[in-house]
């Protein structure tokens, strides 16, 4: 029965559930796509890039779910708020509080079920598209195939449903607390206060978020980028929970300002903002989320790349770099190049990874990072890693160098003995010869070839790059000899520093496309939420507009009043969003560069704030126009 009631109410209120439905549809499409890719990733043979897909898909899926939960919880909160009298009537007539709560839960189920079939269909198409995209970007080998069972799809739908239920939980709770007497129009109902549970929960999450930020701040920065995204979610959850308070505070301050600036409609705006502070908070939250997410998603990689290229520039002592596209240079290339006429030093590096483990018990979980396996030769003559402890000359067979960050996380200093596991998970003992600072874009450990060569996982040792430095005064001779080497091996690339930097820039752009993809998805989601919220909050007031016009306000005055209110909403949202993003970025910057002032590009900032503002204002203005198109008398009758 309750399911039927929920079904009827969803069907009869298409507009107010449209937003939830679209958000759910997007979420199901994305989560299904993620589920399919995840399943395929697990089934993929090693070497087909399954692990890469999984590591890309998991955070992506989580963000989608989070944003969906936000959109749906906002839409449901509004729909319950608008139906207060209806719910009160239900309570008066026959429904127990539990039944009302279940009805809201069933409404979320109805939305899930309605979105399931098209959502999964779109999800499969999206999975195909994403695979093609990842392959085209070179993030995943072409051998990666989509292979999945029905379980992955049903689990995706189930996860969406559970998330939606969690998101509407507080709406259901509020609905069940509506008192039956509220159905009787004239009965005076005491003004509802902001729930204590909600406030406490919001403050607790906020404290958790701030604690998380201090953790980012003191972390070395290698994981800080992923944590930054998570911190936005935590902080925005707190904002969502504390939205009524934000609305209350901002509404009274900005309302007063409106009244001072615009004496006629300003008074109305002020009273609207202060009495409907809840609506103000609810309307501002999704926009704030858009701003915070967009800022963090765009600035974190930008800051990271800036730091990487900065450190790259400081590191580079070598005059020429030899690379080969694809697998890499053969093992012998280092010696070949080193022996060429005029070459003073030639050191090769190969990317790998390493974990520092304390004792034999906990060998699986230790701090780790990217490692560079270096060939024999004085590394410090081609790369200046910024050694802070010990000495980085030629590493002996039993010696390693660690980044400051890794050394700190592993609690070791130069001169200490460490146990490290390499690609094959075998433990090797080594002495820390040096600790260095310029690790961004390079790696957290330097391993000598004799130590690492035997521990590679199922592959021969190939070289990623050979760094070359000429003997003093013989630079030209080096160029000639490298050019002749290249004639013999046409696939080798010989880069000077400028070309090397250009190459790095190209890689940076490629990695940013994934960021843009993620950002695009999140923006679509949050925009749905922004538009839906504004449409709902404006449309519900068509009766109020009609009344205003009947008592003598012109259409233009009402439109101006709404413009002012929307502007206040936008202002609050931009402020809150910037605050959240600013806090996260400051912490991230501290972790990355040691400075709390994040380096932000003005153009990007203007784009985010301007885009969000224009979207919200345009929605608000056009919805008001639609709401005002009705004849006031008709609108008043409809509102009853």
């Amino acid at each position, binding site marked *: 029965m309750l399911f*039927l009631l929920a079904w*009827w109410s969803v069907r009869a209120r298409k507009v107010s559930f449209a937003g939830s439905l679209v958000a759910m549809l997007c979420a199901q499409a994305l989560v299904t796509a993620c589920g399919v890719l995840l399943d395929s990733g697990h089934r993929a043979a090693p070497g087909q890039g399954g692990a890469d897909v999984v590591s890309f898909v998991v955070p992506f899926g989580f963000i989608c779910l989070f944003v969906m939960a936000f959109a749906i919880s906002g839409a449901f909160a509004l729909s319950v708020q608008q139906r207060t009298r209806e719910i009160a*009537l239900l309570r008066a007539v*026959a429904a127990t*509080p539990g039944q009302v709560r279940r009805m809201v839960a069933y409404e979320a189920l109805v939305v899930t079920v309605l979105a399931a079939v098209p959502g999964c269909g779109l999800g499969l198409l999206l999975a195909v598209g994403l695979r093609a995209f990842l392959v085209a970007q070179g993030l995943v080998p072409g051998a990666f195939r989509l292979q999945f069972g029905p379980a992955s799809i049903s689990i995706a739908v189930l996860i969406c449903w559970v998330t939606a239920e969690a998101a509407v939980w507080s709406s259901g709770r509020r609905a069940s607390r509506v008192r039956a007497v509220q159905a009787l*129009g004239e009965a005076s109902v005491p003004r509802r206060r902001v729930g204590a549970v909600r406030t406490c929960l919001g403050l607790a999450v906020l404290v958790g978020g701030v604690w998380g930020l201090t953790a980012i701040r003191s972390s070395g920065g290698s994981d800080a980028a992923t944590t930054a995204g998570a911190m936005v979610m935590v902080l925005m959850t707190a904002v969502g929970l504390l939205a009524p308070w934000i609305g209350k505070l901002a509404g009274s301050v900005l309302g007063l300002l409106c009244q001072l600036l615009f004496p006629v409609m300003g008074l109305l705006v002020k009273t609207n903002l202060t009495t409907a502070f809840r609506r103000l908070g609810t309307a501002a939250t999704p926009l704030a989320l858009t701003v915070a997410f967009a800022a963090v998603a765009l600035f974190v990689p930008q800051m990271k790349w800036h730091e990487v290229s900065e450190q790259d520039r400081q590191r580079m002592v070598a005059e020429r770099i030899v690379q080969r596209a694809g697998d890499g240079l053969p093992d012998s290339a280092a010696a070949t190049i080193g022996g060429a006429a005029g070459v003073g030093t030639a050191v090769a590096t190969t990317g790998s990874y390493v974990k520092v483990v304390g004792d034999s018990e906990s060998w699986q979980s230790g701090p780790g990072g990217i490692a560079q396996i270096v060939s024999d030769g004085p590394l410090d003559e081609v790369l200046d890693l910024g050694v802070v402890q010990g000495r980085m000359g030629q590493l002996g067979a039993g010696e390693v160098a660690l980044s400051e960050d890794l050394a700190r996380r592993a609690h070791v200093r130069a001169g200490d003995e460490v146990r490290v596991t390499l690609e094959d998970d075998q433990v090797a003992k080594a002495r820390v010869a040096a600790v260095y600072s310029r690790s961004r874009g390079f790696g957290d450990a330097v391993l000598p070839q004799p130590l690492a060569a035997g521990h590679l996982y199922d592959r021969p040792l190939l070289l990623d790059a050979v760094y070359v430095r000429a003997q003093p005064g013989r630079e030209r001779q080096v160029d000639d000899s490298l050019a002749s080497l290249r004639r013999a091996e046409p696939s080798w690339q010989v880069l000077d520093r400028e070309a090397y930097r250009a190459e790095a820039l190209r890689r940076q752009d490629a990695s940013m496309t994934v960021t843009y993809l993620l950002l695009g998805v999140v923006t679509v989601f949050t925009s749905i939420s922004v538009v839906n919220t504004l449409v709902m909050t404006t449309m519900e007031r068509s009766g109020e507009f009609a009344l205003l016009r009947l008592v003598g306000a012109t259409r233009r005055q009402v439109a101006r009043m709404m413009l002012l209110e929307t502007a206040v909403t936008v202002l609050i949202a931009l402020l809150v969003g910037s605050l959240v993003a600013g806090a996260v970025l400051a912490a991230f910057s501290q972790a990355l560069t040691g400075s709390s002032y994040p380096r932000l590009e003005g153009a990007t900032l203007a784009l985010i704030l301007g885009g969000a503002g224009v979207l919200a204002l345009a929605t608000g203005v056009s919805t008001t126009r639609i709401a005002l198109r009705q004849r006031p008398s008709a609108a008043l009758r409809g509102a009853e």
Partner: protein
Amino acid sequence: MRLDGVRKVHGSGGSAVTALDGVTAQLPYGTFTAVMGPSGSGKSTFLHCASGLDRPDHGTVEIGGRDLGPLGERELTVLRRERIGFVFQGFNLLPALTAEQNITLPVRLAGRRVQLDRPWLEELLDYTGLADRRGHRPAELSGGQQQRVAIARALITRPEVVFADEPTGALDTTSARKVLELLRGLVDDVGQTVLMVTHDPVAASYTDSVLILADGKVTEVLHGASAGTIAERMAGVGA
């Protein structure tokens, strides 16, 4: 149904308002009673307390011999669902549901505890003259029709008492008369107990007895009075 020494205070401290001040009243079975009084006399609070929508601060309320005092929110709802019918002034129906769905709502919400009595539903639809409007949504019905749907809904569970809060307040004279005749007919034909809150002496003249409230107290009880008499007495208490 009976109220005994019911007292209810709204708010607290300086802004406290005593809405009911020791009201005792009794509604015999099969009678039509009106509660009247000027604004702020406690009419609505009387109805809320008598129907279990609100709890009195002091005193007891009994419906069909059952004390409402110790019942929890859930039990009160079940009691309202099965033994009480409501008709409000306006906004009586869920806009998303058709007339018939609105009428059967209390039965559907009761789940398996109560079976829908189909013949009774048909009888109610006939009786209220809604048989051909059953598939319409509230927005497609006139005000009078909406009130008749509300009355049919109030009766679907064969309740012991029907509470009506200004049921004709938002209606024109003709529609109001139809609704009042319907309520009167229910009392005469099936012996339904009805309590109606109203400020309209004409509406009150359809009832068997009229309780006049002033300042939270029952000041007078009239039996079988005409609209003229009722209006006169109401003027006496300042309405």
